[in-house]
């Protein structure tokens, strides 16, 4: 028993104060974010697609009978592509707009440079 | 300073219905209802005439119209030929021939695809109409370069027979001359001994000789030779008027053939049995006949197709054989012929009308009839 106590004493449960804290990196957040998590989901036109597929199934996959649905679908996809393209251009340039919710990393970095958190 | 300003044309676009109208108005002139070649005159030049189906079957069932044009006639659902200058010229000359005089030889020459064979077909049609006995070889190159079979001749040692082709030709001759061969005067002037048992008697009808050649293919080549000789004799006697029409005549003088002996040695055309007969009928030492021949680069091998001129193609020997002959040039389409041709194609729905089409196509094809046909095929 005694030896155990001696052992304990020898190993010594160190006091907290006796270990000096070393600051390896500054203790604050960086002024930038990385663009890693920017890939957003690209799901679009699900509604139109299902409508079209239903129509296809109904008409034995004869495309001519579902021209309206096909048109709707392709129109939706075209619109989607266009907005995506526009978004991409904006992101590339990092132009800031008022009241925008989803910011790209470039835009965020721009904000952070303007208003750094001290 | 000369400046050619071309402004408004750059933007010329016509609506479809107007296009159709344009085409409809100035058509009709490209056809002639005159389907007898003997009535064709220079006023009919550059016009198409229709060969009636029965005549076509009689004349060209076994060749005579080039393969590519044959396919074309199927698509057009009719057989039409354009009345062109060279054939008109020859027909005109034939009309004025004194048949008691020695034979005149006409040689059609021209670049590849300029319409020599079709001009010959036109003349052959004329021959049929005027009751000539037609000795028509559709394509000599077929015998000399693409013969079906060859064997050493039995009757003429040292010669080579091309019997299958000869037999085919006999059939062709028979169908072509069905109208003349019914004449009882056409009898053989000498005995033909084929073998110990088979022979054709002097005084038999010429049809017997032909039939023998067809049924006994082994002797077809010699039959052809005999037939040529007999026809020559008959014409001399005035029993019939003959028209010799040979397409690719220079094939008989082009030294490289694809006919071989049994030892696989190449045979010059002079050693092919049928050659002799046709050379005989193209001499001038007989009368009551006329020869229309064509010389064509395609009858010689690719590497020797340097010129389309008759002397080059015939060689010295061939030239001396034919001299004096009447060369008749078959040229590219003239402007009038070209428009007529395009009108015909449009009428047959072969090409869809479009503005500026004729000019473009005439440039691209260089007004060469065959090239034009090729280009239009894909449009």
């Amino acid at each position, binding site marked *: 028993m005694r030896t155990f106590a001696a052992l304990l004493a020898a190993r010594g449960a160190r006091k907290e104060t006796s270990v000096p804290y070393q600051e390896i990196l500054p203790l604050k957040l960086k002024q930038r974010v990385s663009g890693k998590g920017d890939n957003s989901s690209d799901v679009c036109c699900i509604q139109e697609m299902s409508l079209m597929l239903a129509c296809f199934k109904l008409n034995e996959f004869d495309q001519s009978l579902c021209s309206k649905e096909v048109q709707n*679908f392709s129109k939706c996809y075209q619109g989607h592509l266009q907005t995506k393209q526009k978004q991409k251009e904006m992101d590339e340039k990092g132009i800031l707009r008022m009241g925008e919710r989803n910011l790209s990393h470039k835009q965020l970095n721009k904000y952070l440079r303007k208003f750094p958190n001290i | 300073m000369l400046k050619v300003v071309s402004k408004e044309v750059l933007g010329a676009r016509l609506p479809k219905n107007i296009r159709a109208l344009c085409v409809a108005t100035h058509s009709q002139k490209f056809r002639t209802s005159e389907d007898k070649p003997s009535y064709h005159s220079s006023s009919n030049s550059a016009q198409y005439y229709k060969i009636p189906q029965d005549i076509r079957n009689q004349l060209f069932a076994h060749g005579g119209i080039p393969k590519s044009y044959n396919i074309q006639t199927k698509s057009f659902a009719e057989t039409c030929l354009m009345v062109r200058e060279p054939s008109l010229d020859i027909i005109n000359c034939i009309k004025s021939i004194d048949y008691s005089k020695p034979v005149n030889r006409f040689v059609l020459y021209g670049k590849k695809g300029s319409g020599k064979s079709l001009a010959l077909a036109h003349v052959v049609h004329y021959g049929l109409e005027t009751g000539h006995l037609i000795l028509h070889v559709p394509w000599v190159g077929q015998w000399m370069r693409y013969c079906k079979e060859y064997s050493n001749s039995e009757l003429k040692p040292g010669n080579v027979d091309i019997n299958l082709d000869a037999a085919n030709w006999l059939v062709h001759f028979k169908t072509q001359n069905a109208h003349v061969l019914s004449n009882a005067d056409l009898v053989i002037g000498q005995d033909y001994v084929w073998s110990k048992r088979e022979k054709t008697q002097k005084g038999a009808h010429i049809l017997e000789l032909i039939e023998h050649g067809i049924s006994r293919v082994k002797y077809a080549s010699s039959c052809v030779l005999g037939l040529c000789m007999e026809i020559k004799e008959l014409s001399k006697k005035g029993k019939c008027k003959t028209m010799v029409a040979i397409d690719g005549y220079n094939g008989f003088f082009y030294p490289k053939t694809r006919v071989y002996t049994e030892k696989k040695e190449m045979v010059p055309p002079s050693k092919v049995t049928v050659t002799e007969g046709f050379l005989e009928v193209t001499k001038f030492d007989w009368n009551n006949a006329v020869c229309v021949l064509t010389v064509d680069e395609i009858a010689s091998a690719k590497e020797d197709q340097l010129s389309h001129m008759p002397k080059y193609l015939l060689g010295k020997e061939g030239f001396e054989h034919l001299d004096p002959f009447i060369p008749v040039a078959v040229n590219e389409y003239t402007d009038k012929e070209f428009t007529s041709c395009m009108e015909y194609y449009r009428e047959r729905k072969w090409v869809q009308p479009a503005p500026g089409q004729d000019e473009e196509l005439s440039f691209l094809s260089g007004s060469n009839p065959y090239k034009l046909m090729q280009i239009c095929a894909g449009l």
Partner: protein
Amino acid sequence: MALVKTLANLKSVQILTNKLAALSVVQQNGMSMYPPYYINPIFKKDAQVELFENGEAQKLAHIPTKAALIDQTCSIYYDDDIRLFRNYIMRSGRKSLARELLDKAFEKVKRSQLEKFHKAKTEEDKNKIVLDPREVFHMAVDNCKPVLFLTPIKRGGVKYQVPVPITEKKSQFLSMKWLIEAATDKERTVHFPEKLAYELIDASNNTGRVVKRKQDLHRQCEANRAYAHYRWS
């Protein structure tokens, strides 16, 4: 269509010219022999007329153009889609052979259509038959264009075939590719142009193997429609 392309060109030109000065040694347009600010030529006459009417031509006055390619002309028979199709047929740079094959196929199309035309009894039937092989070709390509295609997407270690909408360009490419594949898949005795002509006519009538292939693809898409929301790019 051509105009849209030219406008797209213009935009890219503006961007490129802006970037021009920033260019140092490395060219940004790959291995092209032309500097990046060169625009593609606009050689069709009607496209040019439009260009001059709406004043875009003024802006192009200072921008150099690339030379027109050797298979581009302002001829009435020039067609961009056919040129594309011809280049898809082409193997190892033999362009004249590709052209010959396609022209022969068109010839065959025309012949068989003409045959039908001559066989047709009434005027009405005759009018229905399309005699222009180029039109037949366009109809065939249009009929074979898929609107969806399947792309494999890995989710949780399992690959799902997910139906995805398709861009116009890719859809056209697939359609042409299928036509060519259908035509190459033949017996040895049949020639490519014949088979291609046959396929073109079939496809233009909305029947045949290629249209069936498209429908099969659509059918599969329909079966997999539940995965549609798995898509991300």
